[in-house]
């Protein structure tokens, strides 16, 4: 079957999709967006968290056909242009990234949390992130990262409540960090 949807603001079409494929599979293997991770394939780990029509879901639990005509936003769509989002930068700065496999899901979940609750208390952070497993960090630095991102957004954002619908993404005052270095030159696949 053919699946058409909007991914990170642009129209996307995947052909020859087998009906049993998940949205996660289509994103990763057919649309060239492997940022969302597959670690459990049953909605337990949160590594594949994406926005579907503005609501966070586990992409592994969404059948590809259910995404037809809908709006999908993945970790690849969190950064604005070349600049990292506040949540992304905070994860780096706070040391919340180790192996990084859980990171894309946590970035999306945290982004969602801070849109809903700009200054969450620790119990709210814990509750919001309880569906995202991390095996490396013990979560301490992840808590630090969420607090840091919230503080930075609060110091940069206009007061919340300025209107619903796609709350303005702050222009991150914090730079994107060092350039990432050479990519995949000379290797297959790019």
């Amino acid at each position, binding site marked *: 079957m053919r699946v058409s949807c909007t*991914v*990170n603001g642009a129209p996307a079409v995947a052909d020859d999709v087998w009906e049993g494929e998940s949205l996660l599979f289509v994103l990763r293997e057919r*649309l060239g967006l*492997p940022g969302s991770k597959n670690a*459990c394939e049953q909605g337990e780990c949160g590594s594949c968290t994406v926005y579907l029509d503005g609501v966070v879901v586990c992409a592994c639990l969404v059948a590809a056909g259910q995404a037809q005509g809908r709006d999908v936003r993945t970790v690849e769509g969190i950064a604005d242009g070349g600049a*990292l989002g506040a949540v992304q930068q905070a994860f780096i700065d706070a040391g919340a990234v180790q192996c990084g496999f859980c990171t894309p899901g946590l970035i999306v979940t945290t982004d969602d949390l801070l849109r809903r609750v700009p200054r969450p208390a620790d119990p709210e952070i814990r509750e919001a992130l309880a569906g*995202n497993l991390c*095996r490396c960090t013990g979560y301490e630095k992840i808590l630090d990262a969420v607090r840091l991102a919230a503080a930075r957004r609060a110091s940069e954002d206009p007061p919340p409540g300025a209107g619903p619908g796609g709350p303005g993404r702050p222009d991150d005052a914090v730079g994107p960090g060092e350039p990432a270095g050479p990519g995949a030159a000379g290797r*297959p696949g790019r």
Partner: protein
Amino acid sequence: MSGRGPAGPGSATATVTATGREDKGVGASVPRPDGTLKVTGEFAFSSDLWLADMLWGATLRSPHPRARIRAVGLAGALRLPGLAAVLTHDDVPGRKTFGLEAADQPVLAGGEVRYQGEPVAVVAADHPETARRAAAAIAVDYEVLAPVTDAEAALRPGAALVHPGGNLVRHVRIRSGDPHAPAAVVVSGRYEVGMQDQAFLGPESGLAVPAEDGGVDLYVATQWLHVDQDQIAASLGLPAGKVRLVLAGVGGAFGAREDLSMQIHACLLALQTGRPVKMVYSREESFFGHVHRHPATLYYEHAATADGMLVSVTARTYLDGGAYTSSSPAVVANAATLGAGPYQVPNVSVDAYGVFTNNPPCGAMRGFGAVQACFAYESQMDELARRLGMDPVQLRIRNAMTEGSVMPTGQVVDSAAPVAELLRRVSGAPLPQGVPGTACAGGPGGEPDLRDLPGGVSNTTHGEGVVRGVGYAVGIKNVGFSEGFDDYSTARIRLELVAGEPAVTVHTAAAEVGQGLVTVQAQIARTELGVDRVTVRPADTAVGSAGSSSASRQTYVTGGAVRAACAAVRDALLGRAALRYGVPAADLTLADGKIASRDAGVLADLAELLADEAIEQTVTWRHRPTQPIDPETGQGNAHVQYAFAAHRAVVDVDTELGLVKVVELTTAQDVGKAMNPLALAGQIHGGTAQGLGLALMEEIQVTGGVVRNPSFTDYLIPTILDMPPMNLHILELADPHAPYGLRGVGEPPTISATPAIVAAVRAATGRPLRRVPIRPDDIAGL
């Protein structure tokens, strides 16, 4: 198609350049150079690799823990459209077996399967679902046999044999002093440790690409590229040079990637089909695709004087290695040599046995051997304190090992061993307030917040039946490979001008598995060469072996190699300057990008000396040699370094429902030198979390050799709701034998966290709790 092309193999995994100021050297909290790629989703993990014409591999696994294979029927699979290859035991061209310490594990099972999940056949197809269906369509005729499942019973005469050579993998015997020395008090106990899973999030995966020279290029997540290369080449029947490995992005390891999983299978399929083959395990398959932590049964007897001085420790430990050898011999050695704990014990008798069974194979997991022993000896110390009427911390401090202490192996501990100080740090820290409404609130009154209670918003208690407990533990771990193993690493350092600026390239085969080695390598190069711009190349087999990213060794050994190679580069540079300026090299120094002489001051900028030619040096670096231990007495300098951590756990327990809320964990650890304090904290936090998991929730449940819970729904790892705030006390007591004085840090936190939490639950409930993970039934007394 829209968006960018999918990630190519090896892309964006570790070629990460960081430029920086002087504060980005050793000792600074430098952020990860791969952090940006990881937060944007661009970092290519081994499961993200993609090529346009690739096939998908899948594995058929035995449903039985023990069975004879009568026949394998491929017809059903071969009929499926889209299928490219089916391979069985007969199709393995080279050595039919593999293994880390003994090549006893079949690449694909031949005559007999020895554990549930053992690979029997592999297939390649154009879609992962086609591959799964093809594997399912293979008809295997099994003669099911009764499995061997009890490690202790498997050693008794007449037991059924898992392998013809017998069920004993290894017996390590430690004897020192007089184990029958008279004592005033004796406590004994039998302890059990369940089978823990590493549960890394990034599943076993990789991409094998056939090469024009008849060889294969494999992009894979592993802990040790060269030991993989040797095993793969042997089974493919190829020279090692034709099997080239590149480290793809690794989604955690914790020991589970030391053994091979899909490596040989993907290479076989790629060579058979002439097309790239990708293999990615599902979570369920991952539970069968790697070794686990050895379940253990431990019998301990501690004897002491009436005033609490340890007289003797006697132990018998059975470690269930499952069906194949894997790392069991080293696990057994750790459980034995570290079996008395970080204490001075004049008389020790330890027997540790590694045993073959038809249970899932067990091997490396963070802290191996030491984790199991620590749960037993620390539980014993608490029991001894109770019998003596002593404070458990004071009993530990009274018997604490120090620098200069003699291990039960006769080895003198020749660097800092601040066991007493670690205990003082954790026990001296202020205790958290009680939760209002509970039995030992101690704080303000009022209604408790449900989220602070065991059971949380499940609303299982409002404080009634909730009791607080505090527990302590301290542990010991060896760092690096032991018993005479030639434990080395190789580093290639290149110093050159890039766009007119001095730049350093670090190339090693050391696996970055999340721990931050890629950051530390760059920090070392900056410190040694004073150059800001450092690039760490992707790890591959184009440079010599780095050894394994395990045993808390990689910063020590590969860090040592990077430092040594930088020193060789510096020497070559100063030699070049000496020739050019007619000054003895010994009078020259390199600092702040300038070469200076003792007498004449600054002679040249680094850039001037590099203008014509780069400098490159490759150095193989070894730590101090260790020795095998005597097979009768266990005596010998088996280990290169010891590392210590202590924990205090504070828990609230719902004694009626058996639910535990860990309120706080406090850790003290001596790290020798904090190479990167931010990354160091992450190691201690993460290691502690895995120790909490073993204490309270993590167990692969095996019945009759069959795994009952191979999923994240049924195998529980700690979530952010399970982890409490953690307070760290870091000591930096330099080890004069180690680079920068550093001490391996990855494993100690996992070791002492478990017994501290169990001790706290015991303190709250009065239950004996001699098995981990603790089950609610154990607490409720059901």
